[in-house]
């Protein structure tokens, strides 16, 4: 299996070089956010207030990890279902976010926004939280510690394995893959 390598933050060129179905190793800093954190970020944007992080070029990982045991960097840390973030994703892309990592399908508004803002949606393997935790070398709270596992965290990742699902050209691996292997 061939993997492309991407360093964060992502550039337009980096995003445009990706195609649905590509396997990618992500390296660098990424940030976590789930439903509750997205809601707070969007509220700040709508009130014209400053965000607790600069989203320009950033990759957001939809994850709520298990607590680390003493001596571990992070607990199990696989992706959660992305569809719950669909309502917020176009605004996140408009604010500079370049990529997001989760699992499961996105709605048309998100796919359109990925094209418009040149963004990319990656899937990590759902249910492989133990394996993915081994690729995370730093785990720090950035904002909203009161949200517990839903707080915004900074993660440093090394060769974090993801697959491009929706690229900036509007392709969708979930459609392409199922059509290829469907038996009617």
């Amino acid at each position, binding site marked *: 299996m061939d993997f492309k390598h991407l360093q964060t933050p992502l550039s337009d060129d980096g995003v445009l070089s990706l195609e649905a179905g590509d396997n990618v190793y992500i390296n660098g800093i990424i940030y976590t956010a789930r439903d509750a954190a997205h809601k707070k970020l969007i509220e700040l944007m709508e009130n014209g207030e400053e965000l607790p992080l600069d989203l320009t070029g950033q990759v957001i990982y939809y994850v709520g990890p*298990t607590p680390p045991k003493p001596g571990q960097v992070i*607990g199990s840390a696989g992706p*959660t279902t992305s569809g719950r973030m669909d309502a917020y994703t176009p605004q996140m892309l408009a604010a500079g976010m370049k990529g997001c990592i989760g699992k499961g399908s996105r709605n048309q508004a998100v796919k359109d926004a990925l094209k418009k803002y040149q963004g990319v949606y990656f899937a990590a393997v759902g249910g492989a939280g133990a*394996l993915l935790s081994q690729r995370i070398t730093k785990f720090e709270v950035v904002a909203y510690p009161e949200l517990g596992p839903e707080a915004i965290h900074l993660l440093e990742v090394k060769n974090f394995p993801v697959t491009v699902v929706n690229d900036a050209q509007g392709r969708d691996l979930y459609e392409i893959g199922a059509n290829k292997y*469907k038996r009617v």
Partner: protein
Amino acid sequence: MREINAEVISEKVAMMCQDANRYLGEDVSKAIAESVDKEESPTGKAVLKQLEENIQIARNSDIPLCQDTGFAVFFVEWGQEAILTGGTLDEAINEGVRRGYAEGYLRKSIVEDPLQRVNTGDNTPAVINLEMVAGDQVKIAFAPKGGGSENMSTVQILKPSDGYEGVVDFVVDHVNKAGPNPCPPIVVGIGLGGTLEKVAYLAKKALIRPLGHENPDNYYAEMEKEILQKVNDLGIGPQGFGGRITALAVHIETYPCHIASLPVAVNINCHASRHGEIVI
């Protein structure tokens, strides 16, 4: 009468919560291993190999298989010649969950109220299904249930005239709509018959049957095979990236039903189909 102390139940439940979230059952590990050879898609194969690696890392590095360590669901078969002392069954099981999720560094995923949504902080309360049975033994089965796959589950009361084909179409169509969301390869639990609440219970119960065990009634064993084939013909594949292995198994549980109805429930489980069982 045999006496069983609540503390014994709490202790064993606490251990089972931790073990089930770290050690995937042999039945599921075997099903995943066997599916690697059957998968035609290179990406699908790579996903299945990642799942095998994940099982090993969870086991060897003492880390949960999945970050969603689930709603704690229990099926208790209580031998009616046994008496519980030192507390209620609810308290005993919830205390076990509280300890198991804290000591095992498992995620606390339960909110106190469906709309006001404040986390209870200890993963309680559990969902406890109780059946009274003959004898003086107590069997407690535990299945932590992830939100992602539970969200892709459904119930529908079909018309009796929809029949066998109607049920097959309903299930296959539903799995197709769920697509990549419930973390395929999945296990499909199907309840057939009973009433609205009974059919949902049957679908959940179908998920704790060990993989590789078909329905003892040949008619339903054949139906399980047919649905599995049709689901795998959808092409969704591991993680929905396209491929042959969309489901590892289809399990059907049935109950008699009213002359006017044909209830069907589909409860989907992800590939981390975790379950544990203790007998006291």
